[in-house]
Protein backbone atom coordinates (compact mmCIF):
# COMPACT_ATOMS: atom_id res chain seq x y z
CA UNK A 1 0.00 0.00 0.00
CA UNK A 2 1.32 3.41 -0.99
CA UNK A 3 -1.00 6.41 -0.86
CA UNK A 4 0.24 9.65 -2.40
CA UNK A 5 -1.83 12.70 -1.54
CA UNK A 6 -1.47 16.25 -2.82
CA UNK A 7 -3.17 18.80 -0.58
CA UNK A 8 -3.65 22.30 -1.92
CA UNK A 9 -5.54 25.44 -0.99
CA UNK A 10 -4.89 29.06 -0.21
CA UNK A 11 -2.69 29.86 2.77
CA UNK A 12 -4.91 29.85 5.86
CA UNK A 13 -7.32 27.13 4.71
CA UNK A 14 -5.62 24.62 6.97
CA UNK A 15 -4.12 22.22 4.44
CA UNK A 16 -0.93 22.07 6.53
CA UNK A 17 -2.88 20.82 9.55
CA UNK A 18 -4.99 18.39 7.49
CA UNK A 19 -1.85 16.72 6.16
CA UNK A 20 -0.15 16.77 9.53
CA UNK A 21 -3.09 14.99 11.15
CA UNK A 22 -2.92 12.26 8.51
CA UNK A 23 0.88 12.04 8.82
CA UNK A 24 0.70 11.76 12.63
CA UNK A 25 -2.02 9.14 12.32
CA UNK A 26 0.14 7.16 9.88
CA UNK A 27 3.18 7.45 12.16
CA UNK A 28 1.36 6.21 15.26
CA UNK A 29 -0.02 3.41 13.10
CA UNK A 30 3.58 2.29 12.44
CA UNK A 31 3.54 3.22 8.75
CA UNK A 32 6.24 4.95 6.75
CA UNK A 33 5.32 8.55 6.04
CA UNK A 34 6.86 11.65 4.46
CA UNK A 35 5.26 15.07 4.53
CA UNK A 36 6.79 17.79 2.41
CA UNK A 37 5.30 21.29 2.64
CA UNK A 38 5.73 24.17 0.28
CA UNK A 39 7.69 26.86 2.05
CA UNK A 40 9.20 30.29 1.84
CA UNK A 41 7.25 32.48 -0.48
CA UNK A 42 3.74 31.36 0.54
CA UNK A 43 1.59 33.95 2.28
CA UNK A 44 -1.98 34.04 3.61
CA UNK A 45 -4.16 34.03 0.54
CA UNK A 46 -1.48 32.54 -1.74
CA UNK A 47 -1.49 28.96 -3.00
CA UNK A 48 0.01 26.37 -0.63
CA UNK A 49 0.71 22.77 -1.61
CA UNK A 50 1.73 19.75 0.46
CA UNK A 51 3.07 16.34 -0.59
CA UNK A 52 2.01 13.51 1.74
CA UNK A 53 3.08 9.90 1.19
CA UNK A 54 1.90 7.04 3.41
CA UNK A 55 3.24 3.55 2.77
CA UNK A 56 3.94 0.12 4.22
CA UNK A 57 7.39 0.31 2.60
CA UNK A 58 10.35 2.67 2.79
CA UNK A 59 9.65 5.94 0.96
CA UNK A 60 12.42 7.26 -1.27
CA UNK A 61 11.52 10.56 -2.91
CA UNK A 62 9.03 12.62 -0.86
CA UNK A 63 8.05 14.52 -4.02
CA UNK A 64 4.90 13.31 -5.77
CA UNK A 65 4.62 13.19 -9.55
CA UNK A 66 1.50 11.04 -9.89
CA UNK A 67 -0.89 11.45 -6.95
CA UNK A 68 -3.49 8.85 -5.95
CA UNK A 69 -5.48 11.62 -4.31
CA UNK A 70 -5.83 15.36 -4.82
CA UNK A 71 -7.58 17.28 -2.04
CA UNK A 72 -8.12 20.82 -3.23
CA UNK A 73 -9.78 23.80 -1.56
CA UNK A 74 -9.95 26.65 -4.07
CA UNK A 75 -10.10 27.35 -7.82
CA UNK A 76 -6.50 28.61 -8.38
CA UNK A 77 -5.12 25.56 -6.56
CA UNK A 78 -7.27 23.25 -8.66
CA UNK A 79 -6.08 24.83 -11.92
CA UNK A 80 -2.48 24.68 -10.78
CA UNK A 81 -2.32 21.11 -9.46
CA UNK A 82 -4.97 19.09 -11.35
CA UNK A 83 -2.28 17.75 -13.68
CA UNK A 84 -0.58 15.93 -10.81
CA UNK A 85 -3.47 13.48 -10.35
CA UNK A 86 -3.36 10.02 -11.92
CA UNK A 87 -6.10 9.34 -14.49
CA UNK A 88 -7.83 6.91 -12.11
CA UNK A 89 -7.15 9.00 -9.00
CA UNK A 90 -9.43 10.45 -6.35
CA UNK A 91 -10.34 14.13 -6.71
CA UNK A 92 -11.81 15.60 -3.56
CA UNK A 93 -12.78 19.21 -4.03
CA UNK A 94 -14.28 22.03 -2.03
CA UNK A 95 -17.44 22.61 -4.07
CA UNK A 96 -18.13 25.95 -2.35
CA UNK A 97 -15.06 27.46 -4.02
CA UNK A 98 -14.43 25.34 -7.12
CA UNK A 99 -16.53 25.16 -10.30
CA UNK A 100 -15.70 22.18 -12.52
CA UNK A 101 -16.30 23.18 -16.14
CA UNK A 102 -14.35 20.35 -17.67
CA UNK A 103 -14.36 17.35 -15.26
CA UNK A 104 -11.14 15.30 -15.56
CA UNK A 105 -10.89 11.53 -15.79
CA UNK A 106 -10.99 10.78 -12.05
CA UNK A 107 -13.23 9.65 -9.19
CA UNK A 108 -14.69 13.02 -8.26
CA UNK A 109 -16.34 13.96 -4.96
CA UNK A 110 -17.67 17.50 -4.53
CA UNK A 111 -17.90 18.52 -0.87
CA UNK A 112 -19.27 21.99 -0.01
CA UNK A 113 -16.71 22.19 2.81
CA UNK A 114 -16.69 25.95 3.34
CA UNK A 115 -20.49 26.00 3.45
CA UNK A 116 -20.68 23.08 5.90
CA UNK A 117 -18.04 24.66 8.14
CA UNK A 118 -19.82 28.03 8.11
CA UNK A 119 -23.08 26.36 9.14
CA UNK A 120 -21.23 24.68 12.03
CA UNK A 121 -20.21 28.17 13.13
CA UNK A 122 -16.51 28.35 12.18
CA UNK A 123 -15.33 28.55 8.58
CA UNK A 124 -11.81 27.57 9.71
CA UNK A 125 -12.83 23.91 10.13
CA UNK A 126 -13.48 23.43 6.39
CA UNK A 127 -10.19 21.49 6.27
CA UNK A 128 -11.45 18.97 8.85
CA UNK A 129 -14.71 18.58 6.87
CA UNK A 130 -12.54 17.54 3.89
CA UNK A 131 -10.56 15.22 6.14
CA UNK A 132 -13.81 13.52 7.23
CA UNK A 133 -14.84 13.04 3.62
CA UNK A 134 -11.42 11.62 2.73
CA UNK A 135 -11.55 9.16 5.63
CA UNK A 136 -15.03 8.01 4.62
CA UNK A 137 -13.79 7.25 1.08
CA UNK A 138 -10.29 5.83 1.64
CA UNK A 139 -10.78 4.40 5.14
CA UNK A 140 -7.02 4.54 5.91
CA UNK A 141 -7.70 5.34 9.57
CA UNK A 142 -10.72 5.26 11.88
CA UNK A 143 -12.40 8.51 12.97
CA UNK A 144 -11.36 7.73 16.56
CA UNK A 145 -7.70 7.44 15.56
CA UNK A 146 -7.82 10.87 13.90
CA UNK A 147 -9.73 12.39 16.81
CA UNK A 148 -6.96 11.14 19.08
CA UNK A 149 -4.41 13.08 16.98
CA UNK A 150 -6.65 16.17 17.05
CA UNK A 151 -6.94 15.91 20.80
CA UNK A 152 -3.14 15.87 21.12
CA UNK A 153 -2.82 19.01 18.96
CA UNK A 154 -5.68 20.99 20.57
CA UNK A 155 -4.13 21.41 23.98
CA UNK A 156 -4.49 24.24 26.52
CA UNK A 157 -6.26 27.32 25.21
CA UNK A 158 -7.24 25.53 22.01
CA UNK A 159 -8.99 22.74 23.96
CA UNK A 160 -12.41 24.29 23.43
CA UNK A 161 -12.00 23.89 19.65
CA UNK A 162 -12.09 20.10 19.88
CA UNK A 163 -15.92 19.85 19.88
CA UNK A 164 -16.40 21.81 16.65
CA UNK A 165 -13.57 19.92 14.93
CA UNK A 166 -15.22 16.64 15.90
CA UNK A 167 -18.51 17.91 14.41
CA UNK A 168 -16.67 18.95 11.25
CA UNK A 169 -15.05 15.53 10.88
CA UNK A 170 -18.41 13.79 11.30
CA UNK A 171 -20.14 16.18 8.87
CA UNK A 172 -17.49 15.44 6.27
CA UNK A 173 -17.94 11.70 6.68
CA UNK A 174 -21.71 12.14 6.52
CA UNK A 175 -21.41 14.13 3.27
CA UNK A 176 -19.93 11.03 1.60
CA UNK A 177 -22.30 8.50 3.16
CA UNK A 178 -25.50 10.39 2.25
Amino acid at each position, binding site marked *: MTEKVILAGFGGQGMMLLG*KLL*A*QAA*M*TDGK*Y*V*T*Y*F*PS*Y*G*TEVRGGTAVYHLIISNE*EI*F*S*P*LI*EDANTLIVMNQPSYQKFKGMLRPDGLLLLNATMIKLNDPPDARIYKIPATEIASKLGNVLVSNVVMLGAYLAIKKLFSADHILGQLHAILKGKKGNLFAINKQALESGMQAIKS
Partner: protein
Amino acid sequence: MKQLLTGNEAAAEAAIQAGCRYYYGYPITPQNELINYMSVRMPQVGGTFIQAESEIAAINMVYGSAAAGGRAMTSSSSPGISLKQEGISYLAGSELPCVIVNIQRGGPGLGDISASQADYFQAVKGGGHGDYHTIVLAPCSVQEMADLVYDAFDLADKYRNPVMILGDAQIGQLMEPMEFHKKPQKNLPIKNWALTGAAGRKKNVIKSFYPVKGELEEFNAHLQKKYKMIAEHEVRYEAINVNNADIILVAYGTSARICKEVVKKSHRFEFKVGLIRPITLWPFPTDIIRKMSEMVQCILTVEMSAGQMVEDVRLSVEGRCPVHFYGRTGGGVPTSLEIIKKIAEIVPDNRVAHTLLQLTEVK
Protein backbone atom coordinates in the same frame (compact mmCIF):
# COMPACT_ATOMS: atom_id res chain seq x y z
CA MET B 1 8.74 7.68 21.12
CA LYS B 2 8.58 8.65 17.47
CA GLN B 3 7.96 12.27 16.55
CA LEU B 4 7.05 13.92 13.27
CA LEU B 5 9.63 16.66 12.76
CA THR B 6 11.25 18.62 9.97
CA GLY B 7 14.96 18.06 9.37
CA ASN B 8 15.59 21.61 10.61
CA GLU B 9 13.81 20.98 13.91
CA ALA B 10 15.47 17.59 14.34
CA ALA B 11 18.91 19.18 13.88
CA ALA B 12 18.14 21.84 16.49
CA GLU B 13 16.77 19.44 19.11
CA ALA B 14 19.63 16.98 18.55
CA ALA B 15 22.11 19.81 19.15
CA ILE B 16 20.39 20.71 22.43
CA GLN B 17 20.47 17.07 23.50
CA ALA B 18 24.14 16.82 22.52
CA GLY B 19 24.87 19.58 25.02
CA CYS B 20 25.01 22.57 22.68
CA ARG B 21 24.25 25.64 24.80
CA TYR B 22 25.39 28.39 22.45
CA TYR B 23 23.55 29.03 19.21
CA TYR B 24 24.00 32.06 16.98
CA GLY B 25 22.17 32.50 13.71
CA TYR B 26 20.67 34.85 11.18
CA PRO B 27 17.41 33.99 9.37
CA ILE B 28 17.41 32.64 5.83
CA THR B 29 15.03 30.31 4.00
CA PRO B 30 15.05 27.24 3.96
CA GLN B 31 16.63 26.85 7.43
CA ASN B 32 14.37 29.19 9.42
CA GLU B 33 12.71 26.37 11.38
CA LEU B 34 16.10 25.60 12.91
CA ILE B 35 16.77 29.11 14.24
CA ASN B 36 13.11 29.43 15.27
CA TYR B 37 13.29 26.18 17.24
CA MET B 38 16.51 27.30 18.92
CA SER B 39 14.97 30.63 19.93
CA VAL B 40 12.33 28.71 21.90
CA ARG B 41 14.44 25.84 23.28
CA MET B 42 17.73 27.53 24.25
CA PRO B 43 16.20 29.67 27.03
CA GLN B 44 14.40 26.55 28.35
CA VAL B 45 17.72 24.74 28.90
CA GLY B 46 19.56 27.81 30.20
CA GLY B 47 21.56 28.24 27.00
CA THR B 48 22.35 31.29 24.93
CA PHE B 49 20.43 32.12 21.76
CA ILE B 50 21.32 35.19 19.78
CA GLN B 51 19.82 36.29 16.50
CA ALA B 52 22.96 38.05 15.36
CA GLU B 53 23.09 41.17 13.21
CA SER B 54 24.62 39.17 10.36
CA GLU B 55 25.97 35.75 9.42
CA ILE B 56 29.51 37.06 9.90
CA ALA B 57 28.70 38.15 13.44
CA ALA B 58 27.09 34.76 14.16
CA ILE B 59 30.12 32.69 13.12
CA ASN B 60 32.44 34.93 15.16
CA MET B 61 30.19 34.51 18.21
CA VAL B 62 30.61 30.76 17.66
CA TYR B 63 34.38 31.36 17.71
CA GLY B 64 34.09 33.07 21.09
CA SER B 65 31.94 30.38 22.72
CA ALA B 66 34.07 27.57 21.27
CA ALA B 67 37.26 29.27 22.54
CA ALA B 68 35.71 29.35 26.02
CA GLY B 69 35.06 25.59 25.80
CA GLY B 70 31.32 25.55 25.07
CA ARG B 71 29.48 23.44 22.51
CA ALA B 72 28.53 26.05 19.93
CA MET B 73 26.58 25.98 16.68
CA THR B 74 25.43 28.16 13.83
CA SER B 75 23.29 27.40 10.82
CA SER B 76 22.40 29.05 7.56
CA SER B 77 21.75 28.37 3.89
CA SER B 78 24.11 28.73 0.95
CA PRO B 79 24.46 32.55 0.58
CA GLY B 80 24.76 32.87 4.36
CA ILE B 81 27.33 30.07 4.53
CA SER B 82 29.44 31.95 1.96
CA LEU B 83 29.50 34.89 4.36
CA LYS B 84 30.74 32.64 7.18
CA GLN B 85 33.78 31.33 5.30
CA GLU B 86 36.29 33.75 6.80
CA GLY B 87 35.13 32.74 10.28
CA ILE B 88 35.32 29.03 9.44
CA SER B 89 38.91 29.43 8.24
CA TYR B 90 39.76 31.17 11.55
CA LEU B 91 38.00 28.40 13.52
CA ALA B 92 39.98 25.74 11.65
CA GLY B 93 43.20 27.75 12.09
CA SER B 94 42.56 28.13 15.81
CA GLU B 95 41.54 24.46 16.12
CA LEU B 96 38.17 25.27 17.64
CA PRO B 97 35.41 22.66 17.73
CA CYS B 98 31.96 23.77 16.52
CA VAL B 99 29.10 22.67 14.29
CA ILE B 100 27.89 24.55 11.22
CA VAL B 101 24.69 23.46 9.45
CA ASN B 102 24.25 24.33 5.76
CA ILE B 103 20.71 23.72 4.45
CA GLN B 104 21.72 24.24 0.83
CA ARG B 105 19.59 26.21 -1.63
CA GLY B 106 20.05 27.02 -5.29
CA GLY B 107 22.91 29.27 -6.42
CA PRO B 108 25.07 30.99 -7.46
CA GLY B 109 24.32 34.37 -5.92
CA LEU B 110 20.94 34.76 -4.26
CA GLY B 111 19.76 31.83 -6.41
CA ASP B 112 16.46 30.47 -5.18
CA ILE B 113 15.08 28.71 -2.09
CA SER B 114 14.75 25.20 -3.48
CA ALA B 115 16.94 22.17 -2.76
CA SER B 116 20.47 22.04 -4.18
CA GLN B 117 23.81 20.29 -3.67
CA ALA B 118 25.92 22.93 -5.36
CA ASP B 119 27.93 23.88 -2.23
CA TYR B 120 29.90 20.60 -2.27
CA PHE B 121 33.15 22.20 -3.43
CA GLN B 122 32.84 24.96 -0.85
CA ALA B 123 32.16 22.47 1.95
CA VAL B 124 34.82 19.84 1.24
CA LYS B 125 37.62 21.84 -0.37
CA GLY B 126 37.96 24.41 2.39
CA GLY B 127 35.71 27.29 1.35
CA GLY B 128 37.78 29.87 3.13
CA HIS B 129 41.50 30.62 2.76
CA GLY B 130 44.39 28.43 3.82
CA ASP B 131 45.13 24.70 3.92
CA TYR B 132 42.32 23.39 6.07
CA HIS B 133 39.44 20.94 6.11
CA THR B 134 36.12 20.84 7.90
CA ILE B 135 34.67 17.40 8.56
CA VAL B 136 31.54 17.26 6.37
CA LEU B 137 28.56 15.01 7.17
CA ALA B 138 25.66 14.52 4.73
CA PRO B 139 22.32 13.22 6.09
CA CYS B 140 19.69 11.72 3.77
CA SER B 141 16.73 11.53 6.18
CA VAL B 142 15.34 13.42 9.16
CA GLN B 143 16.46 10.59 11.46
CA GLU B 144 19.98 10.71 10.10
CA MET B 145 20.03 14.49 10.45
CA ALA B 146 19.52 14.11 14.21
CA ASP B 147 22.02 11.23 14.50
CA LEU B 148 24.72 13.10 12.59
CA VAL B 149 24.28 16.27 14.64
CA TYR B 150 25.08 14.27 17.80
CA ASP B 151 28.13 12.80 16.06
CA ALA B 152 29.17 16.20 14.71
CA PHE B 153 29.63 17.63 18.21
CA ASP B 154 31.63 14.58 19.31
CA LEU B 155 33.85 14.64 16.21
CA ALA B 156 34.42 18.38 16.63
CA ASP B 157 35.55 17.93 20.24
CA LYS B 158 37.59 14.82 19.48
CA TYR B 159 39.67 16.53 16.78
CA ARG B 160 39.31 20.20 17.80
CA ASN B 161 37.94 20.92 14.34
CA PRO B 162 34.83 22.55 12.82
CA VAL B 163 32.26 20.06 11.52
CA MET B 164 29.75 20.93 8.82
CA ILE B 165 26.38 19.25 8.32
CA LEU B 166 25.64 19.52 4.61
CA GLY B 167 21.89 19.18 4.12
CA ASP B 168 19.59 20.74 1.55
CA ALA B 169 16.18 22.42 1.41
CA GLN B 170 14.39 19.10 1.02
CA ILE B 171 16.00 17.48 4.08
CA GLY B 172 15.47 20.70 6.05
CA GLN B 173 11.77 21.08 5.21
CA LEU B 174 10.75 17.43 5.01
CA MET B 175 8.78 15.95 7.91
CA GLU B 176 9.39 12.30 8.79
CA PRO B 177 8.92 10.15 11.89
CA MET B 178 12.14 10.12 13.90
CA GLU B 179 13.44 9.35 17.38
CA PHE B 180 16.06 10.95 19.58
CA HIS B 181 17.92 7.95 20.88
CA LYS B 182 21.64 8.64 20.85
CA LYS B 183 23.68 9.55 23.87
CA PRO B 184 26.72 11.84 23.56
CA GLN B 185 29.98 9.90 23.29
CA LYS B 186 31.86 9.33 26.52
CA ASN B 187 35.63 9.74 27.10
CA LEU B 188 36.07 12.84 25.00
CA PRO B 189 39.27 14.76 25.69
CA ILE B 190 39.03 17.41 28.42
CA LYS B 191 39.17 20.94 26.99
CA ASN B 192 42.23 21.98 28.98
CA TRP B 193 43.09 24.38 26.15
CA ALA B 194 39.96 26.50 26.62
CA LEU B 195 39.94 30.12 27.78
CA THR B 196 38.32 29.74 31.17
CA GLY B 197 40.32 32.21 33.26
CA ALA B 198 43.98 31.51 34.01
CA ALA B 199 43.97 32.07 37.79
CA GLY B 200 46.24 29.40 39.33
CA ARG B 201 47.32 27.89 36.02
CA LYS B 202 49.44 28.64 32.98
CA LYS B 203 47.58 30.83 30.49
CA ASN B 204 45.99 29.33 27.38
CA VAL B 205 46.24 31.04 24.01
CA ILE B 206 43.77 30.58 21.15
CA LYS B 207 45.07 32.08 17.91
CA SER B 208 45.53 31.49 14.21
CA PHE B 209 48.33 34.03 13.76
CA TYR B 210 51.93 32.75 13.53
CA PRO B 211 54.13 35.67 12.42
CA VAL B 212 57.50 34.17 13.42
CA LYS B 213 59.19 32.57 10.43
CA GLY B 214 58.88 28.78 10.49
CA GLU B 215 56.15 28.63 13.17
CA LEU B 216 53.29 28.61 10.68
CA GLU B 217 54.84 25.84 8.61
CA GLU B 218 55.22 23.80 11.77
CA PHE B 219 51.58 24.47 12.70
CA ASN B 220 50.41 23.49 9.21
CA ALA B 221 52.35 20.23 9.50
CA HIS B 222 50.47 19.56 12.73
CA LEU B 223 47.13 20.30 11.01
CA GLN B 224 47.96 18.01 8.09
CA LYS B 225 48.86 15.22 10.49
CA LYS B 226 45.49 15.67 12.18
CA TYR B 227 43.63 15.64 8.84
CA LYS B 228 45.46 12.44 7.87
CA MET B 229 44.32 10.83 11.11
CA ILE B 230 40.72 11.94 10.51
CA ALA B 231 40.88 10.53 6.97
CA GLU B 232 42.15 7.21 8.33
CA HIS B 233 39.55 6.84 11.08
CA GLU B 234 36.36 8.69 10.29
CA VAL B 235 35.29 7.74 6.74
CA ARG B 236 31.64 6.68 6.65
CA TYR B 237 29.46 5.45 3.82
CA GLU B 238 26.49 3.21 3.12
CA ALA B 239 26.89 0.46 0.51
CA ILE B 240 23.77 -1.11 -0.98
CA ASN B 241 23.63 -4.03 -3.40
CA VAL B 242 27.30 -3.64 -4.34
CA ASN B 243 28.33 -7.31 -4.44
CA ASN B 244 28.66 -8.39 -8.09
CA ALA B 245 27.19 -5.09 -9.25
CA ASP B 246 27.54 -4.19 -12.94
CA ILE B 247 27.18 -0.49 -12.30
CA ILE B 248 27.64 1.56 -9.12
CA LEU B 249 25.78 4.78 -8.41
CA VAL B 250 27.49 7.30 -6.14
CA ALA B 251 25.22 9.88 -4.50
CA TYR B 252 24.69 11.60 -1.15
CA GLY B 253 21.82 13.22 0.73
CA THR B 254 18.60 13.84 -1.21
CA SER B 255 20.07 12.46 -4.47
CA ALA B 256 20.96 9.22 -2.68
CA ARG B 257 17.33 8.71 -1.67
CA ILE B 258 16.34 8.75 -5.35
CA CYS B 259 19.22 6.40 -6.20
CA LYS B 260 17.98 3.95 -3.56
CA GLU B 261 14.70 3.86 -5.48
CA VAL B 262 16.63 3.06 -8.68
CA VAL B 263 18.46 0.23 -6.89
CA LYS B 264 15.14 -1.16 -5.71
CA LYS B 265 13.56 -0.93 -9.19
CA SER B 266 16.68 -2.50 -10.72
CA HIS B 267 15.77 -5.91 -9.32
CA ARG B 268 13.75 -6.26 -12.53
CA PHE B 269 16.77 -5.52 -14.72
CA GLU B 270 19.09 -8.13 -16.18
CA PHE B 271 22.07 -6.45 -14.62
CA LYS B 272 22.82 -5.28 -11.15
CA VAL B 273 22.82 -1.71 -9.88
CA GLY B 274 24.54 -0.88 -6.57
CA LEU B 275 24.89 2.32 -4.57
CA ILE B 276 27.68 3.89 -2.55
CA ARG B 277 26.30 6.71 -0.42
CA PRO B 278 29.06 8.81 1.15
CA ILE B 279 28.00 9.92 4.66
CA THR B 280 31.27 11.75 5.25
CA LEU B 281 31.96 13.97 2.22
CA TRP B 282 35.25 14.93 3.83
CA PRO B 283 36.95 12.61 4.51
CA PHE B 284 35.73 11.11 1.23
CA PRO B 285 35.20 7.31 0.97
CA THR B 286 37.98 6.96 -1.59
CA ASP B 287 39.02 3.38 -0.80
CA ILE B 288 35.64 1.70 -1.29
CA ILE B 289 35.04 3.59 -4.55
CA ARG B 290 38.49 2.60 -5.82
CA LYS B 291 37.77 -1.01 -4.86
CA MET B 292 34.41 -0.90 -6.67
CA SER B 293 35.95 0.63 -9.78
CA GLU B 294 38.00 -2.54 -10.26
CA MET B 295 34.88 -4.71 -10.32
CA VAL B 296 32.17 -2.81 -12.20
CA GLN B 297 31.55 -1.83 -15.83
CA CYS B 298 31.11 1.83 -14.93
CA ILE B 299 30.17 4.32 -12.22
CA LEU B 300 27.42 6.94 -12.36
CA THR B 301 27.53 9.90 -9.98
CA VAL B 302 24.20 11.64 -9.35
CA GLU B 303 24.06 15.11 -7.82
CA MET B 304 21.88 18.19 -7.61
CA SER B 305 24.71 20.24 -9.09
CA ALA B 306 26.51 20.65 -12.41
CA GLY B 307 29.06 18.02 -11.30
CA GLN B 308 31.13 18.55 -8.16
CA MET B 309 31.45 15.33 -6.13
CA VAL B 310 32.04 13.54 -9.45
CA GLU B 311 35.55 15.05 -9.40
CA ASP B 312 36.36 13.27 -6.13
CA VAL B 313 34.88 10.07 -7.55
CA ARG B 314 37.18 10.37 -10.59
CA LEU B 315 40.18 11.03 -8.33
CA SER B 316 39.31 7.86 -6.42
CA VAL B 317 38.81 5.78 -9.56
CA GLU B 318 41.96 7.08 -11.30
CA GLY B 319 40.80 5.85 -14.69
CA ARG B 320 40.09 2.25 -13.69
CA CYS B 321 36.57 2.45 -15.16
CA PRO B 322 34.44 5.10 -16.89
CA VAL B 323 32.82 7.60 -14.49
CA HIS B 324 29.61 9.21 -15.77
CA PHE B 325 27.55 12.04 -14.34
CA TYR B 326 23.89 12.94 -14.10
CA GLY B 327 22.91 16.17 -12.42
CA ARG B 328 20.13 18.71 -12.04
CA THR B 329 20.65 22.33 -11.04
CA GLY B 330 18.61 25.32 -9.88
CA GLY B 331 16.11 23.46 -7.72
CA GLY B 332 15.74 20.42 -10.00
CA VAL B 333 15.59 17.11 -8.13
CA PRO B 334 16.48 14.03 -10.22
CA THR B 335 13.72 11.43 -10.66
CA SER B 336 14.36 7.68 -10.62
CA LEU B 337 13.13 7.56 -14.22
CA GLU B 338 15.70 10.12 -15.37
CA ILE B 339 18.47 8.14 -13.67
CA ILE B 340 17.37 4.86 -15.27
CA LYS B 341 17.33 6.58 -18.68
CA LYS B 342 20.87 7.80 -18.02
CA ILE B 343 21.94 4.26 -17.08
CA ALA B 344 20.44 2.96 -20.33
CA GLU B 345 22.49 5.55 -22.19
CA ILE B 346 25.82 4.57 -20.60
CA VAL B 347 25.70 0.78 -20.23
CA PRO B 348 28.09 -0.74 -22.75
CA ASP B 349 25.68 -3.53 -23.80
CA ASN B 350 23.06 -2.33 -26.33
CA ARG B 351 20.60 -5.11 -25.54
CA VAL B 352 20.59 -4.17 -21.84
CA ALA B 353 20.08 -0.53 -22.75
CA HIS B 354 17.15 -1.46 -24.97
CA THR B 355 15.46 -3.43 -22.17
CA LEU B 356 15.99 -0.59 -19.72
CA LEU B 357 14.41 1.92 -22.03
CA GLN B 358 11.41 -0.37 -22.50
CA LEU B 359 11.07 -0.66 -18.73
CA THR B 360 11.13 3.10 -18.31
CA GLU B 361 8.42 3.53 -20.91
CA VAL B 362 6.19 1.01 -19.10
CA LYS B 363 7.07 2.79 -15.81
